[in-house]
């Protein structure tokens, strides 16, 4: 594999889960209550995949990786709606609780709070034979979990753009009274959007855990936050959000690749993704300010 196609393969592997998370975030932004717990939900998804992978089989593990974060997200929204708690604060709580809870359960199930390798959980690369194709090569030879993450992103995007659910979600975010006039419950629409965001984060978490075949604490590595940034940078629109995700994926895998070839200090290169994120955010907000 040439350097360029290795780099693109890397970028696509990064983009797949990130786009799923961002689309999930966008679903909640549509209903007017952006779920800031995406980071924590990725952790829940990855950890569920590892635990159920150990106890059951990979397919059951994948289903659990989707269902558990969806249920957690739905419950967190239900909690903030019923108690009228601020959804931002509840979301922060989920972000802090998720790694802590994973750590406790990890001790009980894997006997360690650190990295837990689960045999047979690493997902196989699919369509490897086509990876040698010119141009389109990097699209193939990815893991099946990455393809499923892309499918999840596409499904969420399709639901938002082309189904009554998407229209209702937008209506809920713009004027909840319009749903009341249609005899619909804005709270239920919001709950559904939260469940969708949890499901998308689960697909991303499973893809991360499946890429190394193990549970690694902090393996989400800020993807949930970067996805939130992508939603804002993309102007809270589908196309824009996806474009922002692609930009991040390219920049971050560029920084990753530089670690292998550059003689710059390793610490600097490892922190490069976060600097790049900050730089893109600043550039993006400067641009939107000018537009106003």
């Amino acid at each position, binding site marked *: 594999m040439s350097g360029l196609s290795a780099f693109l393969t890397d970028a696509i592997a990064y983009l797949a889960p990130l786009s799923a998370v961002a689309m999930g975030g966008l679903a909640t932004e549509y209903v007017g209550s952006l779920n800031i717990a995406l980071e924590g939900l990725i952790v829940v998804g990855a950890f569920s995949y590892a635990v159920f992978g150990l106890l059951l089989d990979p397919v059951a593990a994948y289903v659990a990786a989707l269902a558990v974060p969806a249920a957690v997200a739905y419950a967190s929204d239900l909690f903030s709606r019923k108690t009228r708690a601020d959804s931002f604060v509840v979301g922060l709580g989920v972000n802090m609780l998720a790694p802590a809870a994973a750590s406790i359960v990890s001790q009980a199930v894997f006997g360690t709070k650190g990295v837990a390798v689960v045999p047979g959980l690493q997902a196989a690369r699919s369509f490897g034979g086509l990876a040698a194709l010119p141009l389109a090569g990097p699209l193939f030879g990815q893991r099946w979990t990455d393809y499923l993450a892309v499918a999840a992103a596409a499904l969420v995007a399709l639901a938002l753009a082309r189904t*009554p659910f998407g*229209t209702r979600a*937008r209506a809920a975010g*713009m*004027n909840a009274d*319009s749903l009341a006039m*249609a*005899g*619909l419950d804005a709270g239920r629409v919001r709950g559904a959007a939260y469940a969708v965001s949890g499901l998308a984060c689960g697909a991303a978490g499973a893809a991360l855990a499946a890429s190394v075949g193990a549970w690694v604490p902090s393996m989400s590595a800020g993807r949930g936050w970067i996805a939130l940034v992508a939603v804002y940078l993309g102007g809270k629109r589908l196309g824009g959000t996806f474009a922002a995700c692609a930009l991040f994926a390219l920049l971050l895998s560029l920084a990753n690749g530089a670690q292998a070839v550059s003689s710059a200090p390793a610490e600097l290169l490892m922190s490069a993704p976060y600097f790049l994120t900050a730089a893109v955010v600043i550039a993006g907000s400067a641009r939107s300010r000018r537009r106003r």
Partner: protein
Amino acid sequence: MRLLSLGSVSKYYSSTATLAVDGASFELRPGEVHALVGENGAGKSTLAKIMCGFESPDSGRIELRGEGLSFGSHRDAERAGIGFVPQYSMLAPGLTAAENVALGHEPRMLGVFADRRRAAYDFSILADRYGFVVDPDAVVSTLSAAERREVEILRALSRGGDVLVLDEPTSILGERETSALFALIGRLKDAGAGIVYISHRAREILELADRISVMRSGRLESTVAASDVDERSLADMIMGGASIPAGERGGQEPGAAMLELRGVSLGGRGADRLDGADLVVRSGEIVAVIALGGNGLEALEAVACGEAEPDSGEALVRGRPVRSYARRELVSGVMAYIPTDREGRGLCAKASVALNAVARRLPSYSFREFAAGEAPLADAGAILSAFNVRNWPRRRIDTLSGGNRQRVVVARELERQASLVIAANPAQGLDGSSRAALFSRLSEMRAAGSAVLILSSDPEDASAVADRSFALYRGRLKAVGPADESAIAAALTGAAP
């Protein structure tokens, strides 16, 4: 024969400790227009919400064609055939007209996907049937207030019910839209539908209604046949006795020009544009500009308040272009402004009544005063008492009825003596006594030297207090005699003089 009946219905709001509806009994017959009148806060809107399933009553019965019903949500009421046109917009602004009407009943492709073309098609069929002209694919936020109201009416009709509840439907409609609405109501009535019509406008009610019920302090006081009342006695019923004072008219000569438009043209949304408008408003006079929807009133408002830059010509306030003023300067006593778009521009919907009332004074509080909250609360009380808004300074303003919100905006803007007052549809949603208070305050300000410009779609606003009146038709201003309603009507509709 009764279509819909409410027996001894009561509704208590614990958040505000008010008994909004107190043992009201009401009945609607098939083929009748039943008007519901009363002061702001008399309980008309709450009663309407109970009929339509938005609120469930604490006690009492609801019967439709003799069968007892209880509504869990508006959807239940809708299924039973009851449509509702709310007083203020309940549309999703970023969706299209067709999407708003289809919401909750979206036509689908393959059982999953929203069929937008089908929704747009259904919308145009519906609009055609009822004689409305609205682009199905237009995003609601780009529509005029009158067009939005039409979308709202179409939504209520789209489920094909035989009870229609309209809450002050004409408050922002021009004459053409109003007569289209009346014709429509007539046709629905002939088809056997029952219509509940909430309004403050005596003339409309006499034209439309078969029976009239009066509400006061949550009670339904009496129901009379419309043929038994005349305009005078109906006005007394609506207003509870208050009437508009003539005011000190023409006591002094007007002074210096406060607002001057010189050959202003502005291409607005759709038909709403200005075409070379010249207008001077001097201190010590009230000038009214009356127009029906889509004739340039929105454009005129946007130019006069400095929101829009004219395509050509100038808009001067005290001899300086209005756009050259800093907002802070305008707010600090140069201009008082009551916007037509009350919810979007006149209020901060998520803030309390008190905060909305003192919004203009915010820069004058120290941080300590503001944080303690006592001074703003006391000021709010003083400002609001002028328009009899009481009891709920700490409530969020969007929990108030439309008329009460308007009273807050009017009280805030007319609190201090501004050099220039721009009042756009200032009486929208106001009941008789608040309307009287509004116009007497405007005459008071005129006597103290303010220049007042009233922009309205209601000719009665001009005849109430204006020294000079203009009709705006297709973007052009035409002077009309004050209080000459037939001349105004002719000019408004482009009829030959």
